[in-house]
């Protein structure tokens, strides 16, 4: 038997971030919620954060969480679902406030205001805003463990590679600013002034970078961050997972484990009257389960059954958590 999810977490006391990545619809959000629930029951203070704009934490916890900030859905179980649009609006207001404060003006020049207004229309704005929200929560460090539910592929990968890109950006911009400041200092010296210029932009840039670096480091350090994938015993899911593993490799991230979800309980086969439907379905799944074991054995951390009810509401999440952590190798329906 490979290491179970619980064993994995027990063996990683420094862990601060858990990421569920992969294709949509396989139960990532459910798994995140269950993980958060489990940590909260163990006396930790977890934050479950959905960066998936499909925003289904609200549905899972049957509460309107979307855009409401951090909410304690159960004792010491915190959940947040970012409303990127709202966040962008707030951000725009922050920028305006900063301008007003910096220049002591009431009305922001039309040209500038229009720029701020229309910036929201830029195609990458949403992503950046979500990403920044994530980095910010992480940097604040108010929670013991952060559980991110990353949106389906492409997107999720970009979130990580974006940190690298922006890092390079800031490097280059810092260099430009630094050189400019050097000239300015030399000018000051030539004028006989012992000016030590303090560049506000440089300060801001360093602040952005500090946050990004912290974020990237946290995410790429295998001691503090674990990446999990959720898979179901179907052919396409297996193919997708293989591809995802390649991508992880490219990003230099080690996959921490795989959760196999939606397994029809094979015990049902014991019923002699079993419908051909279920029989076929179970047999197909078992075929793929074999493939999954062959291909990903070292990664498998838990098996989760196909429940007879949709996993939503605290009771069901508790049940999922129980399967994931306490009975990782059993797929019987209780």
């Amino acid at each position, binding site marked *: 038997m490979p290491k179970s999810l619980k064993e994995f977490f027990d063996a990683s006391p420094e862990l601060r971030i858990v990421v569920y990545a992969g*294709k*949509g*619809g*396989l139960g990532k959000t459910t798994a995140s919620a269950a993980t958060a629930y489990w940590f909260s029951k163990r006396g930790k203070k977890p934050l479950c954060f959905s960066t*998936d*704009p*499909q925003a*289904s934490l609200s*549905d*899972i916890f049957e509460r309107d969480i979307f855009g409401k900030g951090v909410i304690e859905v159960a004792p010491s179980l915190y959940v947040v679902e970012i409303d990127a649009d709202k966040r962008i609006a707030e951000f725009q207001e922050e920028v305006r406030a900063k301008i007003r404060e910096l220049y002591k003006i009431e009305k922001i020049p039309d040209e500038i205001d*229009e720029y701020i207004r*229309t910036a929201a*229309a*830029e*195609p*990458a704005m*949403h*992503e*950046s805003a979500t990403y920044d929200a994530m980095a910010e929560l992480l940097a604040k460090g108010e929670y013991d463990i952060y559980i991110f539910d990353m*949106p*389906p*592929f*492409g*997107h999720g990968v*970009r979130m990580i590679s*974006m940190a690298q*890109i922006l890092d*390079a*950006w800031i490097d*280059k911009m810092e260099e430009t600013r630094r050189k400019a400041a050097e000239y300015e200092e030399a000018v000051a010296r030539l004028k006989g002034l012992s000016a030590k210029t303090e560049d506000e932009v440089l300060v801001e840039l360093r602040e952005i970078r500090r946050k990004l670096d912290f974020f990237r480091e946290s995410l790429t350090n295998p001691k503090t961050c674990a990446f999990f994938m959720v898979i179901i015993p*179907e*052919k*396409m899911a297996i*193919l*997708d997972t293989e*591809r995802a593993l390649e991508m992880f490799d490219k990003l230099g991230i080690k996959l921490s484990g795989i959760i196999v979800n939606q397994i029809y*309980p094979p015990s*049902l086969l014991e*019923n002699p*009257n*079993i*419908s*051909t*439907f*279920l029989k*076929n*379905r179970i047999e*197909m799944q078992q075929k793929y389960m074999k493939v999954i074991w062959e291909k990903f054995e070292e990664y498998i951390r838990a098996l989760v059954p196909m429940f*007879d*009810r*949709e996993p*939503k509401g605290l009771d069901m999440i508790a049940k999922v958590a129980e399967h994931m952590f306490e009975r990782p190798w059993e797929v019987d*329906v209780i």
Partner: protein
Amino acid sequence: MSEPVPLAEYLASKPSLKFFFTGGKGGVGKTVCAAGLAYHFAESGEKTLLASLNPVHSLSSLFEQELWGGVIKPVEGVRNLYAIEVDIKDRVEAYKRQLAEKLRWFLKWADIPVKAEPFIEIAATNPAFEESAMFDNMIDIMLKEGENYDKIVFDCAAVANAVRLLGLSKIYDLWLDRMIKSREEALSLRVRLSFRKDKAMEEIRKDPMMRDLMDMRERIKEAKKIFNNPDRTAFFFVTLPLALPISVVKRFIDMVKGFDIPVGGVFVNGVLPKALAMREGAEDYLKNKYMEQEGYMGMIRRDLWPLVRAMIPLYESEIVGVKMIAKLADDMMKWKPGVEI
């Protein structure tokens, strides 16, 4: 609440429809529904193109044949059916090249004597590229391949991506307007600050940036005309009889309506047949599942009923291969309200 129009009837009543989109929460079967739709058209003698706009494609695995490579390939085993897994890599590369070129040109033009390469490198990594590239490719297919095919079925990415993709047509418009305005301002400033006004005007006429922006706006305008035309385009949502996907679809429909995109209807996928679950001696497991499903069906009836176009049963095995797709297409077309699955 009015009774739903089944898919067969719906399609018959709107023969001019040409562009079809499927979308929904991840894992609900968007791709299979798109494939089923495309299969149906192809089989009825229409030349059909099935295009996957997913960041991660699954057409190849679905049809069990090699359809990747970003080019249109005929689907083996189905007459008149062609498929493409849209590849953005080339286009992203092209974007990068274009931007680099423009930037270099600009730096030279503005007399900034700094080595531009590292900046260009970084500039070319704007994450908006990928989304724009996908959108651009979609428009390309609509505008270019529209003439070559009778029907084109797009398999969109998961909800958020799809909305972004479609919404881009509106967002892009805004954004492009702004870019064009900025550029115009910049250029008029250039003229004002030039002593050789004629030369500056000439430069403006040749401005590659402006030309690109205008081109883009023109294309989007054209695409939008098709996009927002209910006689040409229909967007179908796929859901499972489960709470989460249903609420996603409900949200999704509002968003899509906000973008003036005509809604074609809803497909309910993975429906556990009553005959199977409630038969004599059936497992409790299935019965429970079915009971739960009934609740969600009520939800569908309450919130989405007039839009439902088809209900697709939960099959015993995974939908893979042409045979299964044919079966699915058949079930999609067969569905009528009131008939048990």
